[in-house]
């Protein structure tokens, strides 16, 4: 029978070296045929060498371990490597996937290797469901939009959402108006709404979202027409009729 072959993808050389040495101890007949320092390299190495087992670090530059697993999961046995991803660990347990914890420890590695050896004869398990779940859990929880990437002159700056006085739809762009100055972004108002805290940012017009912290008062011209007076800017923002109810007296 052929010697089993393996690929190790891990971006930190010391950790890669460590895994390789420990594997040599507990699984001497395994041939590590390829090493990769990032996801793209890992993919290329896989296609070149076709190893039976792939050890994939989850966090890698370029394509992540999950991205690589999604592509090669059906063609070889994947063992994930992670230092600390509590959600990932839960998912591994639930999905009965093989995984290793960094820094790799000899005894634990021996147990994991035993499991993999038993599976080698079987066709690799389908990982797509697990990968999808892991991708979702590893993505940072969306805590609302905190920063806006905006072009100011030739530069791109990060503008804190708290600093925005109001957003205004402009033909192609959205104007981000600050107490001093303004910037343009390409994200349409409709998409911005989803990321903004509804308790602080109110849509007062089809084309205007205003930061309540920046509102000085509401001016009532007559029953139909109301305007928002801002603290830090001279212009007044019209409130369209469908939103005037927002400013009814309590």
């Amino acid at each position, binding site marked *: 029978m052929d010697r089993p072959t393996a690929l190790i993808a891990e971006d930190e050389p010391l950790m890669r070296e460590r895994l390789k040495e420990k594997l040599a101890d507990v699984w001497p007949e395994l041939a590590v045929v390829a090493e990769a320092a990032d996801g793209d390299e890992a993919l290329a190495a896989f296609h070149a060498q076709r190893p039976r087992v792939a050890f994939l670090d989850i966090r890698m530059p370029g394509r992540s371990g999950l991205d690589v697993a999604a592509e090669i999961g059906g063609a070889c046995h994947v063992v994930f490597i992670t230092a600390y991803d509590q959600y990932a660990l839960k998912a591994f347990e639930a999905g009965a996937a093989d995984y290793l914890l960094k820094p790799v420890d000899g005894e634990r590695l021996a147990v994991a290797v035993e499991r993999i050896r038993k599976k080698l004869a079987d066709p690799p398990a389908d990982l797509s469901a697990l990968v999808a779940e892991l991708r979702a859990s590893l993505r940072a929880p*969306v805590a609302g939009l905190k920063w806006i990437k905006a072009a100011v002159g030739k530069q791109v*700056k990060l503008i804190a959402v708290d600093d925005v006085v109001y957003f205004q739809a402009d033909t192609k762009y959205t104007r981000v108006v600050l107490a001093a100055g303004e910037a343009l972004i390409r994200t349409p108002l409709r998409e911005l709404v989803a990321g903004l805290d509804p308790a602080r940012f109110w849509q007062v017009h089809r084309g205007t979202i205003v930061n309540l912290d920046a509102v000085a008062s509401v001016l009532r011209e007559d029953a139909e027409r109301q305007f928002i007076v801002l603290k830090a800017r001279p212009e007044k923002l019209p409130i369209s009729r469908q939103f005037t109810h927002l400013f009814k007296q309590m």
Partner: protein
Amino acid sequence: MHDAPPSSTVLARWRKRYAGFSDRVMCSLSDLERQDVRAFDHWFYRQRGWRWAIALCAVATLAAVGASRLPIDMAFGEAALLFNFFAFLLAWVGLTAWFGFRKFQGKMLRTVVVTIALALLGAGVGATIASLARGRDPLVWFTNGSTLRHIVTAVLAFGFLYTGVVATIATLRNRQYVARSARLEAEARQSELKRRLAESQLRMMQLQIEPHFLFNTLGSAQQLAEKGAPDAARLLAQLIRFLRAATPALRENTTTLGADAAQASAYLAIMQTRLPRRLEYRVDVPPALADRALPPGMLITLVENAIKHGIEPTPAGGTVTVSARESERDGARVLVVTVADTGAGLGAGAPGQGIGLANIRERLALIYSGRAALELEENAPHGFVARLALPADASLPGAPSGDPTTTPPWTDPPR
């Protein structure tokens, strides 16, 4: 439609009307005034303050007994009514001034003039009625100089008594009110700032040491040690330096730029060992600026961000530069601390989250009240720049020289 309400419902209706009236009055008062009114209410009804009203009535009646003995044209009944009327009027005036002092503020002169004018009018009308009742011609009676003099004297005396009482009480109370509300407001603001700063400090601590960083660093050290490489001891020494700087700093309100730069150096050295060939770094903090005060954790957060979002996502890596300069901005001296990387830049990262950056911004706003800024922009040709601009003259409150119990970190730096 309805039967005539029985007398008990008439009473109930009046009570309801009174309740409505008192509600309106209470609504028109400020919080502090309302507190005062409630306290008076409590004293009057629960602590039997009404006994003072009885005492006042008794004193006025006694005085009337005395007055009726005097050889003036007044019977006991008249005198008792009159004295009680005046006593309660004065008490009412006093209470009005005591609780309604803000009404009189800035309108003292008007109050005096209106009071005396009304009193003169009332005296004139009263005297006219009295003279008609006694069958005298009021015009003749008025032209008698002494009557007019008496009336004017009485009116002036009463007017000045009334306005004097009102003015004194209102002025004193107003001064007290202003001081009290200013104090309360300041206390509320302070405790709010203190709470928010404590909260954001806490959140920063939670962000501070990443398990990923610890496990990977320890794993690297272990690997080096097993190989017998001398680098192992060096890596552990850097980790110790980093951890030491990270731990006690959290309990202090400030660190120095020098200490934070040393921590950043240790961190970058560790990362360089772990990511050889992918990370270059430079820490450039002039010795002259080393003892500048800095809120803890800000610099290291920026450096960690540069690694995590700049260097680690790019296979080729890049350079992280930490530098500090003092410069002039809008006429003020500012300390500018810059962390720049040549890594992935904004395109790869996902701003929108930026919890660490948001925390820095929040704390800057709380500590420096608008005089400090965190500026973020793209680096050319790629990468990211984060710049802390702090007022250079601010000896940060809570610095080692100051007593942290008397100079809380939220007080404004001296202007």
